[in-house]
């Protein structure tokens, strides 16, 4: 999946807009987001929802991977405690979230960039409210965009890399 076109707006836009990756459980929060849609409860277009069956499926690796690929924030939405479609998958999510938050703090990622929210299937309004709130908070924090930071970090490798490549070319001649 290398050659991606660059005709997209985000890639060229000067104005930074936060991107939030959201993992929503199928039964509560994803359905609530559907409800928000049906009821036309508008919210900021900065969120990208990835559906999982249960918030318990959200591997902390997914959260880190989203950050590493450039997300400015990650939102996890699950059923309210006691209401989990899978009895208590959301409790596992809650525990992981508490530890992950500590890890992220130590790695310099602000607390507001990871949010866990219990949103029941009927709470369309809460979807809209949560997303708007989070977008606003993350906007105030500014870009995280690790994908770009990684490139900056690795810029220091460029000169030697180029040198090595040119030597290879010479060697092949």
């Amino acid at each position: 999946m290398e050659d991606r076109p660059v005709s997209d707006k985000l890639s060229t836009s000067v104005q930074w807009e936060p991107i939030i990756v959201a993992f929503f459980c199928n039964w509560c929060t994803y359905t609530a987001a559907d409800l928000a849609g049906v009821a036309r409860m508008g919210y900021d277009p900065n969120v990208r929802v990835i559906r999982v069956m249960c918030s318990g499926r959200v591997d902390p690796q997914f959260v880190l991977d989203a950050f590493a690929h450039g997300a400015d924030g990650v939102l996890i939405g699950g059923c309210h405690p006691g209401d989990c479609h899978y009895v208590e998958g959301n409790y596992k999510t809650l525990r992981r979230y508490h530890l992950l938050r500590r890890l992220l703090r130590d790695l310099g990622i602000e607390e507001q960039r990871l949010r866990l929210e219990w949103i029941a299937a009927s709470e369309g309004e809460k979807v809209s409210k949560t997303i708007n709130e989070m977008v606003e908070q993350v906007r105030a924090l500014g870009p995280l965009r690790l994908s770009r930071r990684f490139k900056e970090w690795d810029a220091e490798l460029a000169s030697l890399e180029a040198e090595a490549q040119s030597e290879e070319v010479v060697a092949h001649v």
Partner: protein
Amino acid sequence: MSDKPKIAFYWCASCGGCEESIVDLAEDILEVAQAVDIVFWPVAMDFKRKDVEAMPDGAILATLVNGSIRTSEQEEMAHLLRRKSQILIAYGSCAHTGGVPSLANQFTREEILRYVYEEAPSVVNENRVRPQPRHGHNGTAVTLPEFRGLVRSLDQVVEVDYYLPGCPPTPKLLKQAVLTLLSGNLPPKGTVLAPDTAQCDQCPRKETKPVDLKITEFKRPHWTQIDPEKCFLAQGIICMGPATRSGCEAQCIRGNMPCTGCFGPTTRVRDQGAKILSALASSVNAREPEDIEKIMDGIVDPVGTFYRYSLAKSLLRAKVTR
């Protein structure tokens, strides 16, 4: 020179333990030495960089590089050895996943230099002199390698063919690897030359691990009398075993210390720390946020605990706001 296959060893940011592990082959090293020509091994033999530079590209069958990459000189050597070798092997945790040195990725270059040259308790440096990359002395330009902003694993700098994990790798794995190389029957590129299951698979204490850990407390090893028979996790001591590749023959565990994760994750895992975090947190026996927090307080340094050997290769690579 003979037409025996040529092998090289090199070290970058490492403690020397990996070099020791080569010597730990003991008499087997003779067997290896008979089968190959060691053409470069700065720790043990008197070859110079220019000797390597003089070789045709691809002249070395395999180079085993240990240590992580922190300086421009290490980068240069990595590029050079990459070019001269048919096969480049990341040897040991540091080359494989960044190792302990990559925990320095929690700090800026400035923080590190300031501490090391100015603030460390054993340092007396009233003029706050720091080594400079370039320095004129008696009309001669003296240069030092650049100190990079990040510690990197070998494969973050050059292409790597195989990995030998461990801090250090075991002689058994090394011997197997060398024999594999000599056999010509090579595994797919990128293979980690160790089993692809987690530690528990080979752990002598496996049977004592209860089905439900129901963790109510995390203890540090030095806070407690460790039962020499019982699963560490069952004792509330963090053991990286479930998230760490096996192949080390459970040496730490046999020495009554928990696994700290030096073999890195299995192939299926992108981030060793996140995975052990997920497994441990899932097993915590609490439902209320306050109770959960209280238990998590027992993990005093999540980064140092979960990424002791793998911060450079973790998904976030470093403290992002250094």
